[in-house]
């Protein structure tokens, strides 16, 4: 009974998440105005029929910028999570399956990385790399692979002595074949759930760095940098801050909720 309710909720939130992702993907076709077109006669106009979310300091359409910014924020989050997922999973499976010196070494490195405050390291690295989205992704990526590696490693270790793995070995399959065909399909569930729960915090990290001016650089539309830009004239044009803020909050809440709900659903089983 409770399970059914949870399942319905997951479906509803997934639909919301899908709408957000689709809106971000097809932003170019939805935007009513050019997000980069400036207009000196239309600066800081309150929300109206032409500009649903108003216009900013340079007369740009806030609604169009929020949509275009969605692609920047959501896509960079997904890219970072996907890269961490692939790298972390590969490292974790290799470490768990083969063990030995490299396993020990990599796991100690992972422990070490977690011993330092993550955002402090990210700010310093992104700052020293000189800003830009690439720098921000590298800075956050330093620690984001670790949870995947640990998870993949522990799951690989529990299944590596299962009979089907032994049989496969006896059949003369090599390690890589076994990892890809037998281990990966069996451990991918928890890893995907971990990826889902990472989306919210990664998004907070990326927009935080952009807000500080260490991520996406203006005039490129991104929620964090839009908020930072419009903050200076919040008194005159609060809509230029409030709408990107609302978009950030809604997106993070949707993805966090989805992650939580899926985790709960799985733990209930």
């Amino acid at each position, binding site marked *: 009974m409770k399970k059914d309710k949870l399942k319905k909720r997951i479906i509803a939130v997934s639909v919301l998440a899908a709408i957000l992702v689709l809106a971000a993907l097809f932003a170019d076709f939805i935007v009513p105005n050019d997000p980069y077109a400036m207009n000196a006669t239309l600066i800081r106009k309150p929300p109206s029929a032409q500009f649903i979310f108003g216009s900013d300091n340079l007369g740009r359409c806030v609604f169009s910028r929020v949509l275009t910014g969605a692609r920047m924020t959501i896509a960079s989050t997904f890219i970072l999570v996907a890269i961490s997922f692939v790298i972390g999973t590969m490292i974790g499976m290799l470490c768990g399956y083969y063990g030995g010196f490299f396993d020990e070494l990599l796991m100690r490195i992972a422990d*070490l990385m977690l*011993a*330092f*405050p*993550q*955002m*402090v*390291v*990210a*700010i*310093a*690295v992104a*700052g*020293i*790399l*000189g800003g830009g989205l690439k720098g921000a992704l590298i800075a956050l990526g330093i620690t984001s692979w670790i949870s995947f590696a640990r998870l993949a490693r522990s799951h690989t270790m529990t299944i590596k002595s299962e009979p089907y793995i032994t049989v496969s070995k006896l059949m003369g399959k090599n390690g890589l074949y076994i990892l890809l065909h037998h281990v990966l399909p069996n451990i991918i569930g928890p890893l995907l759930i971990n990826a889902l729960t990472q989306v*919210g915090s990664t998004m*907070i990290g990326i*927009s*935080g760095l952009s*807000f*500080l*001016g*260490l991520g996406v650089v203006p005039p490129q539309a991104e929620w*964090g940098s839009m*908020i*930072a830009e419009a*903050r200076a004239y*919040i*008194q005159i044009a*609060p809509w230029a*801050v*409030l709408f990107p*803020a609302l978009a*950030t*909050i809604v997106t*993070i*809440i949707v993805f*966090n*909720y989805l992650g*939580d709900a899926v985790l709960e659903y799985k733990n209930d089983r």
Partner: protein
Amino acid sequence: MKKQLLYRVLGLLAVLFILSILTFALLYIAPGDPAEKRLSSQGVAITKEVLEAERLRLGLLRPFFVRFGEWFFGIIRGDFGISFKDDLPVAPKLAAGLQNTLILAFSSLFVSILISVPLGIISAVRENSVLDHVVRLLSFIGNSLPNFLISVLLMYVFCIWLDVFPIIATGSLQGLFLPAVSLAIPMSGRFVRQIRAEVLRELGADYVTGLRARGVSEKNVLVNNVLYNCMGHIFTIIALQIGILMGGSVVIETIFRWPGMGDLVMDAINARDYPVVMGFVVIMGTIYVVINFLSDILCQVIDPRVEA
């Protein structure tokens, strides 16, 4: 126990040493050249000779380990080098910033512990009550809000709508309120979730059923047993949040111009003033590593079930 402690301390020192190597290595991934930046900001025409001389003067030409050794032993003595920006020693700047950051960090930590410990416990004890649902919803939302957003929204409400606080923190108690609350809201969200889960787990343990069966009062079970057993974990939860608090305070300090380390480091990043950035990472990293070390030890002292 003593031998164990010794190993732990050695491990701690090793981690701190690696932290300092990694921090120093940050210089080598930097694309900009501080010598060049310095000269151009002073309006000197950059020729190859002048650039080389400046690099030599700043000590940028010597090998990695020589420079690292010098820097490392300097830091142990409390000398963080000379700022690239204005040729003043970095240490006093960092010390002043650290003091302000600590004031901010402690007040926000205090506020969020004050809010979240009682809420977490009540919401666990009254699981699935209306109160529990409300607390869970609020903590979920708090946890999902980036702190820069909270501070911008708070600023809008309190400084512009209600006009009760100054926008730029002046270092007074009034100026402390908004930055501290901005940091405390997401932190309380995480605390409440974790504390609630911890208390719930403990309440489901067999000994609680046993105590209840023997007619021990619910209050006694909760205060003398469950909370007592949770204490160690709650300390760990708080200690782990310190790292997030540090990153968050950089953002908050920049927004409110609170004269702490975060504000200092953002200015230093923009000016490519590497000694300040490195000092910031070393100090923050050391505080975090040491706090987590102490909380582990404390956890073992108050809870003998925890194995080393």
